């Protein structure tokens, strides 16, 4: 029984750290006038390109310091944040401009069951307990939800 409790505590701690990490990153941009949360939950590879394009265009328009962007991936859209994803270079470039990436842990668990092992995630992806909850929380904080 103890190992399960230990694991649970470890997972909760990890998620807590992740959320703290996202909040800390968001706090760095708390003075940004425009706050946007982008949702990627689609399996279509074109949507992956599209959501990255939108983030890039927002940065170009407002400037990296004037817009706060978080991309939340869940469901089939989580593939964007797989470590092997061909868009890893673009993701890194956006991270360098202050964009944050959140990965739904519920989806990671579901995919792990299908694959038989946990998918390796992009090192820039920060896990959140549930992608939808993360979007709702950000919405309450004044973020505008855009689903390209």
């Amino acid at each position, binding site marked *: 029984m103890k190992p399960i409790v230990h694991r649970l505590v470890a997972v909760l701690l990890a998620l807590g750290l992740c959320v703290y990490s996202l909040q800390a990153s968001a706090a760095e941009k708390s003075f940004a006038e425009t706050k946007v949360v982008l949702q990627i939950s689609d*399996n*279509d*590879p074109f949507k*992956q390109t599209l959501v990255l394009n939108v983030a890039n265009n927002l940065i170009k328009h407002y400037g990296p310091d004037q817009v706060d962007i978080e991309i939340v991936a869940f469901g*089939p859209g989580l*593939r*964007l944040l*797989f470590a*092997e*994803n*061909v*868009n890893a270079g673009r993701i890194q470039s956006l991270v360098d401009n202050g964009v944050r990436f959140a990965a739904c842990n519920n989806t990671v668990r579901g*995919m792990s069951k*299908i*694959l038989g092992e946990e*998918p390796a995630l992009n090192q820039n992806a920060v896990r959140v307990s549930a992608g939808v909850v993360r979007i709702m929380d950000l919405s309450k904080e004044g973020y505008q939800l855009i689903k390209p």
Partner: protein
Amino acid sequence: MKTKFKKVVLAAASATLLGAVANTVQAANWLMLQGTEPAGAGKRAHVWGFIQAQYQKDDSKANATDGYVPPKLIAPNLDDQSQFNVNRARIGVRGTALPLDSNVNYFILTEFGNNGITYPEDNTHLTDASITLNHIKGARVRMGLFKYPGAEEGLQAIHVFDYVNFTSVTNQLLLERFQQAGNQATQTGDFNQPATPSPNADMNQYTRSVGAFRDVGIQVFDTFKATDWEHSYALMYGNGNGLNFGDNDDNKDVYLYWSSERVFGGKGPRREGWKTFAWYEDGKRTNPNDPTQEQDRTRYGIGTKYLKKPFRLTAEYMKGEGMIFMGQHRPLHQFNNKEAEGWYLEGGWYIPGTKWELDLRYDTYTRDENFVAPIPPTATPSAPGDETEFNTITVGTQYHFNKKTRLNLEYASRDNKSDTAAVEAQQKGVEGRFAIQVTAIF
């Protein structure tokens, strides 16, 4: 065997040397484009295909007895000098069956058009059916029916080919024809045919599909990136029996390929860059008319391709020994140990600010070098010194309606000649050939 090994080493060394010398390098990476899907972004089932509709007119003249040979007629039917044709109509599906697992992808494509693949056998033919396993870094494995690694003109995706017709060297030396057992006397199976009056000549005497630069087998390959450079390799082991799923003898073909390229930018089949490459293939063929006879078939070559709009430049040199194609009307001559070689140089200019592109190509091919007596049965044995040369200058233009649809217009000026009087008499009247073609990709 030692000689073959030397050729392999030379081919690899040439590629490495060319890659090292080049300051800037390549175009599309066909190994990756055709054999893999984008990691983490592949579709479960991506339906795609293309249609090519064309008209061709040949201005060649008949021989002294009003006879015509294949170079004077429009392929694949070879029974007239002008023809509308839907030469390619392909539809296929490719993707990552389980999108969560990029380690496995597949590719299947079927040909419904009228060409050397479908004309001899039936109206439909599967051209590709392969599975790629990407589990081992540096050694992806592809199995099934697919394009073998080789010359750029054969390996490239045909729907982005910048001309309507292949060069003579690719058409004759690399596009393999497969013989069936034939009887000249009873004219059954594959048999030779003398020049025939047109129309209704039907000079196509092969009853099996062309190889279409494909084979069934297993390939290990990968690409390694280093800053702007990409280095690719491929090793393949296959049946050496073209599009047929099974093998017709115990012999297998070996294919080796290396390319080094500097990528300038873009992606897909028209990615900009400068690529140099070398390749080698070797196998044996069994004589369908006498299964006790076997013949080595070897091909090798080097080449380079530069693409940075508005300019494109490609050059390839190829050489072959054994199983040298002697004409679509002379299948029984194909089982031979002759030699042949050829090369081409082509360039394109994308007229800035327009949708037009100008293309110019020179190709030359010399068949039957270093004469060796043909292996029977042959209807009309060659004579010593029987070298035939095919020289073509092709002037073309392309109009790109959009990224997926374009028009090709081209005129090929041909000058063929032979040391043998009988062949020379047939080739003498070979003249220009006009072609117009529309390609739509979906």
